[in-house]
């Protein structure tokens, strides 16, 4: 009976764990938080469970079915995978600390699986703008997590901005937790949106469930008279020690602000997200090949490393339906079976959806023109765009590593998760960087206290 370890208890990881379990594998599912569900099905903890939980979720019953089925599987909650050791020709050894996030004296566990599924998901990408580090400026995901997981609204008068359909469920969650949503600003303009969503629209019909979900969010916008405007962005946030107002601007097709179109509105919170970044550090540490931050997989969701599979946002940002299909295929393949045909068909449908998503809402380079030299880029180490640009110009380097070491951008405690992509794009001259993608390399995947590290026993093997 092969042992399959799945890292990540979101939709892709749950689907993978169940698919492998149903095909006879011994499965261990490792999840960093204290329950499964991932960001998509983030919910109140058991101690605060409410009867109306389903109102904040799409497909809540589907999640319940998954969670019930997981009862026969070993699920390691509060399991923090902090490193993987590569082994020749087989999946890496997986090192886990089990206990509260950022705790101490947690239990160390090591797995040597026959097959490994990495389904660590993604986090949001927020493009920097002047004032984006003011308290009261949140990622859209923070608003979502605090609404779903805490029932707290991040403000009373909230503007939602950025790009992509994910902004819409955030609006619905804010409304349901009592906030007034002043509006939604989508950076993509009508031309970009039409290029993604308007071509071959009959093919979208196959992704019908997705359409129904989005239609629900749009109804919320209409019912609460929340204006939705395209081709616009928050280009600055203002306030002392917390956001008090924002400047919004119209954008051209390249996402450069159009001069003379600025206006200022008062808000007490603003939620900004421009898409997602795969959480790829463990896949990279395992040696998996990636292209532009997306882990390469074949039709079985197999990565470039024997016995290592990947599924979900890590292999391309595509949402829950794609994650579930890929997870099922990865789990089946990890247990030694061919992709289930229905899952393979769903994967094709939702990959098409993902492609449209990127065309319609993908970041355009004009954003750099709203980042003036005083704009903070690296929040941990307080590095401005001006310092980055000046260092790149002064040294003439095309090496990201030396730019990072000189400016300290991306070297702070978040390890470049928040600013990495922005640093790379701002630092890249016309000739490009020699070592693009380096900001995603984090051999130690989650912070470990020195005391814990010191107390780990040497592996007998």
């Amino acid at each position, binding site marked *: 009976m092969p042992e399959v370890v799945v890292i990540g208890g979101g939709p892709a990881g749950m689907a993978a764990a169940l698919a492998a379990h149903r095909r006879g594998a011994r499965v261990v599912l490792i999840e960093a938080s204290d329950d499964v569900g991932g960001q998509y099905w983030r919910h*109140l903890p058991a101690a605060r469970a409410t009867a109306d939980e389903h109102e904040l979720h799409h497909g809540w019953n589907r999640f319940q079915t998954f969670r019930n089925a997981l009862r026969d599987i070993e699920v390691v909650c509060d399991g923090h995978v902090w490193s993987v050791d590569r082994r020749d020709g087989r999946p890496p050894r997986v090192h886990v600390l089990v206990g509260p996030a950022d705790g101490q004296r947690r239990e160390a566990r090591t797995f040597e699986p026959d097959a490994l599924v990495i389904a660590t998901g993604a986090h949001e990408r927020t493009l920097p703008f002047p004032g984006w580090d003011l308290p009261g400026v949140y990622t859209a995901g*923070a608003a979502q997590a605090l609404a779903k997981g805490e029932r707290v609204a991040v403000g009373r008068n909230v503007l939602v901005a950025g790009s992509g359909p994910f902004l819409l469920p955030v609006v619905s969650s804010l409304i349901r937790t009592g906030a007034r949503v002043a509006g939604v600003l989508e950076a993509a303009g009508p031309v970009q949106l039409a290029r993604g969503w308007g071509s071959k629209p009959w093919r979208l019909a196959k992704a019908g469930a997705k359409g129904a979900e989005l239609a629900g969010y749009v109804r919320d916008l209409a019912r609460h008279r929340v204006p939705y405007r395209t081709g616009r962005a928050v280009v600055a946030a203002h306030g002392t020690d917390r956001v008090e107002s924002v400047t919004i601007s119209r954008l051209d097709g390249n996402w450069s602000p159009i001069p003379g179109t600025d206006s200022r509105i008062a808000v007490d919170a603003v939620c900004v997200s421009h898409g997602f970044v795969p959480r790829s550090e463990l896949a990279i540490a395992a040696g998996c090949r990636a292209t532009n931050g997306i882990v390469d997989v074949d039709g079985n969701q197999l990565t470039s490393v024997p016995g290592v599979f990947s599924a979900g946002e890590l292999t391309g940002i595509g949402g829950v339906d794609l994650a579930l299909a890929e997870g099922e295929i990865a789990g089946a393949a990890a247990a030694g079976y061919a992709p289930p045909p229905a899952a393979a068909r769903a994967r094709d449908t939702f990959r098409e959806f993902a492609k449209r998503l990127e065309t319609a809402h993908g970041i355009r380079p004009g954003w750099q023109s709203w980042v003036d030299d005083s704009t903070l880029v690296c929040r941990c180490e307080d590095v401005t765009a001006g310092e980055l640009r000046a260092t790149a110009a002064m040294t003439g380097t095309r090496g990201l*590593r030396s730019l990072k070491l000189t400016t300290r951008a991306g070297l702070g405690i978040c*390890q470049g998760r928040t600013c990495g992509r922005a640093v790379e794009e701002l630092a890249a001259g016309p000739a490009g960087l020699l070592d693009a993608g380096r900001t995603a390399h984090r051999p130690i995947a989650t912070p470990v206290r020195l005391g814990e590290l010191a107390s780990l026993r040497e592996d007998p093997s």
Partner: protein
Amino acid sequence: MSIRIEVDGQPVEAEEGQTIAGVLLSQGRVSWRRSAKTGKARGIFCGIGVCFDCLVVVNGLRDVRACQRRAADGDRVDFQEAAAGDRGESQEAAAGDQSGNRFQGSDVDA
């Protein structure tokens, strides 16, 4: 069920299952830390454990992500890297580095 914790020296009622970030936001706080170099205010940004903006000291152990840690009855939460105006004077000694083991890894660069 309601629990009792101490935030910056003051007793606070919270609900079991709330994260420390949830408790702090419910109190109306939006920031509780200062950035290292320029002293800019920091609170919650990503809400999912990615940005590390929301670090607090929990029961003497520093560098705990407030958004990732559920409040437990009796927890003592202090603020780290806070500016003088951010907290009552009596707390100045409390938030020091009592754990003696800060995160390593901030200079790891593969």
